[in-house]
């Protein structure tokens, strides 16, 4: 699994040195510098407060004198926890917003694509139902074929279904997103 993740992380396209340099479209970032700074400050400050509280508590002889540092250590832990929470929530929100932006109808994709197979493709019978898993969608003139649930196939009209072999004979390649 780690190798698969590593492979996907290595999946960046590198252009050759001789090729004319193209300006890559600007990609949004999951976390900005401001988020990183906020997380670093809260976590760093929380850690420092805990360390200082421990140092002071270790130098006190009675329990009563140690309660103050203990409270401070708990406050440092709370500060760090809030920082972590804000960091993660911000990341989740950014991810959700981008997903909605890129794939607005992804929730309906599976249902609409399945309906699309039934309407546009070969009528389903009990015998042919087993072959639905082998039916892939593509539009005329398109270079790639997709699984029925693929987000890139959602909402497309006029696309037809065919087997993998038929698509490949027509010169189409598998979609890079749904990897049929």
């Amino acid at each position, binding site marked *: 699994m780690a190798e698969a993740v590593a492979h996907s992380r290595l999946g960046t396209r590198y252009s050759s040195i001789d090729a004319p340099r193209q300006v890559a479209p600007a990609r949004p970032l999951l976390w900005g510098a401001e988020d990183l700074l906020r997380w670093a400050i809260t976590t760093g400050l929380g850690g420092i407060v805990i360390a200082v509280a*421990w140092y002071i508590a270790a130098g006190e002889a009675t329990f009563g004198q140690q309660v103050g540092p203990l409270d401070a250590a708990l406050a440092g832990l709370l500060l760090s926890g809030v920082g972590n929470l804000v960091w993660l929530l911000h990341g989740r929100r950014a991810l959700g917003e981008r997903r909605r932006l890129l794939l607005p109808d992804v929730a309906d994709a599976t249902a609409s694509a399945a309906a699309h197979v039934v309407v546009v493709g070969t009528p389903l019978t009990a015998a042919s139902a087993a072959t639905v898993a082998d039916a892939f969608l593509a539009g005329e003139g398109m270079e790639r074929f997709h699984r029925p649930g693929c987000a890139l196939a959602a909402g497309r009209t006029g696309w037809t279904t065919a087997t993998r072999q038929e698509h490949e004979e027509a010169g189409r390649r598998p979609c890079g997103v749904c990897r049929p």
Partner: protein
Amino acid sequence: MDIGKWLRLQWDRVLAWMFVAAGAIALIAGWVGVSGSAYAAGQLPYIISGGIGGIFLLGVGATLWLSADLRDEWRKLDSIEDALREERPAADEVAVG
């Protein structure tokens, strides 16, 4: 697979495991320290360093691990965006033609 390359790619998860391991060690060390002291005044420094410090390290480790998962998902969206860019011009050509 080259371990150096793997570490470079998975730096966030490696760091997360290091923090989690440090947190677990701190908690165990804190427990050992507390159990070896008969007085509350002697136990409290261990509670702060081992207990609270350990939870702090575990929290940072968990945050780094979850961040790595979010980054992986973000990269998947990058590839989807690339595929959409690639797919749309072809679809436009068909529509115009």
